[in-house]
């Protein structure tokens, strides 16, 4: 039994000309971390809304552990972080988590311990937990939101732009938390425009456009993600230099995709591989004037036909 099963889901808002989702089908197993990417208005938030039972499908079915999305038992096992976390201004961080701990139906006796543990886990322990949330930065709010979503040790986790506003340490924390959830067997579905983060944490990636799933990939979460690196040589580089660069023995997990004059497009498997490539080129006396990341694998999905994006034209 799939943890999340979506079959032929179509959703058309009242009064809208076109449906927001068209014939979407999806099956996620326990432990899957599914990233949903796509341009604005693609239907990503609508998909999450349908899975949470906030939106009612026009056609098709959705089940979570063979239950309807608005089933109370599903709610007990759900964690949700909306794109914009709103809370009552009178609350402190600890108040907010206590509130949600109670709403989740968790035992009163475990509340102080659970709340304190959750706050420390996301780096909001101590003095920060007693401050009013109105004084929190965007990143702190996101951390608090993550803590809230994980309070009930969910079986289903829905995250909408989870790393928005987070500093690098917050992003690292986010990756750790998702990895923990994946190992626990939680089924995670997240929307994000931060494609590098999606590639790093997700085991499945769905590209949604105009309400339809355009592509669905399986990835190795945490594995290094391939991207392009465009290297431009100095304008005065001689033909010998160019030939030397072409013939260079490349490090592992680097390959030359194409060359256009003094511009070399490499496919590199990781940041480490990119660094190795540059070292090799410099060691070979190749005069590099510029090295910029080109389109990542996921960015290419967003490119319109005939238009190059990323790097220098």
């Amino acid at each position: 039994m799939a943890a999340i099963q979506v079959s032929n889901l179509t959703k058309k808002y009242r009064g809208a000309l076109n449906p927001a989702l068209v014939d979407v089908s999806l099956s996620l197993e326990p432990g899957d971390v599914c990233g949903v990417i796509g341009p604005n208005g693609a239907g990503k938030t609508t998909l999450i809304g349908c899975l949470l039972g906030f939106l009612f499908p026009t056609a098709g079915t959705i089940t979570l552990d063979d239950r309807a999305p608005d089933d109370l038992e599903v709610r007990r096992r759900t964690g949700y972080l909306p794109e914009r976390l709103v809370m009552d201004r009178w609350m402190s961080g600890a108040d907010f988590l206590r509130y949600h701990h109670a709403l989740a139906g968790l035992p009163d006796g475990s509340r102080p311990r659970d709340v304190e543990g959750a706050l420390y886990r996301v780096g909001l322990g101590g003095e920060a937990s007693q401050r009013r949330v109105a004084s929190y930065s965007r990143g702190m709010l996101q951390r608090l939101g993550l803590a809230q979503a994980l309070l009930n040790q969910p079986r289903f986790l829905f995250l909408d732009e989870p790393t928005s506003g987070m500093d690098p340490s917050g992003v690292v924390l986010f990756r750790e938390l998702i990895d923990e959830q994946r190992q626990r067997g939680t089924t995670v579905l997240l929307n994000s425009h931060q494609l590098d983060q999606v590639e790093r944490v997700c085991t499945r990636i769905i590209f949604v456009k105009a309400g339809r799933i355009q592509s669905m990939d399986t990835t190795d979460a945490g594995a290094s993600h391939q991207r392009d690196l465009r290297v431009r040589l100095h304008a005065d580089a001689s033909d010998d230099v160019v030939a030397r660069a072409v013939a260079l023995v490349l490090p592992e997990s680097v390959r030359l995709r194409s060359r256009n004059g003094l511009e070399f497009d490499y496919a590199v498997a990781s940041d480490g591989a990119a660094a190795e490539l540059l070292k090799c080129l410099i060691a070979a006396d190749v005069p590099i004037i510029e090295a910029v990341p080109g389109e990542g694998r996921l960015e290419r999905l967003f490119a319109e036909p005939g238009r190059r994006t990323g790097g220098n034209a």
Partner: protein
Amino acid sequence: MNRTLMLAFWRERFTSIIRIGLLITVCGFPLIGRFFVKPVTVIGPADIIAAMMVLGAGVIGRDISTGVLQLILARPVTRREYVLSRWLALGCAGFAVGFLCWLILLPLALSSGGSTINHALLRLGEIGLASFGFAAVITGLSSLLPGFGDLALLLAGVMVGSFLSFLGDVGKSPAVSRIGEEVARTLVPMVSFGDVLYDGTFHAYPILAWASATTLGLLLAIYAMNRREFSYGSAG
């Protein structure tokens, strides 16, 4: 009823400086005025309506427009549980404010002969019924529109009722007048025990009207909430 939701409502309402300021204004000044009208009497149900509006405005609609409601409904909280908890919390809050105002005036009202203890207790009962009845109406209206649209609907409804009453009077049509009265009675459900017991006999209608308006308000709220979709992109 969900105790967590109710406690959160009370904390949110009674720590809002704006709402407290408005409560002091709508309750305090009339209260002070009563001290100068001899003899002093305790307040009645009509005196707490303004306070109820201050406390109740946006009771559901505000949660909808701010996005707070989605986070609540992602929890194992049924929509009717949410509605009934908001209603009960609002009714209790309104009654608490009314009780406080009643209590402040009680000693002077009794000593000046303005109210007897029976009269005062009847007024307190009327205040309680008005609190929960009007809370149900606000809850129902608030479920229909986001933000503070409930106040707009309430105002529109009261104006319709008044207009119908006026039309009935002008056109000598008791039926139309009566419809106008019923609209007003439904939007601001109150019971006057004088109306129940006037003429020495028991009259059930005022209590039935109050109970009907209260249950209809709650049913409307639950029905509207059950049908409502929540999305950044939906029409609501």
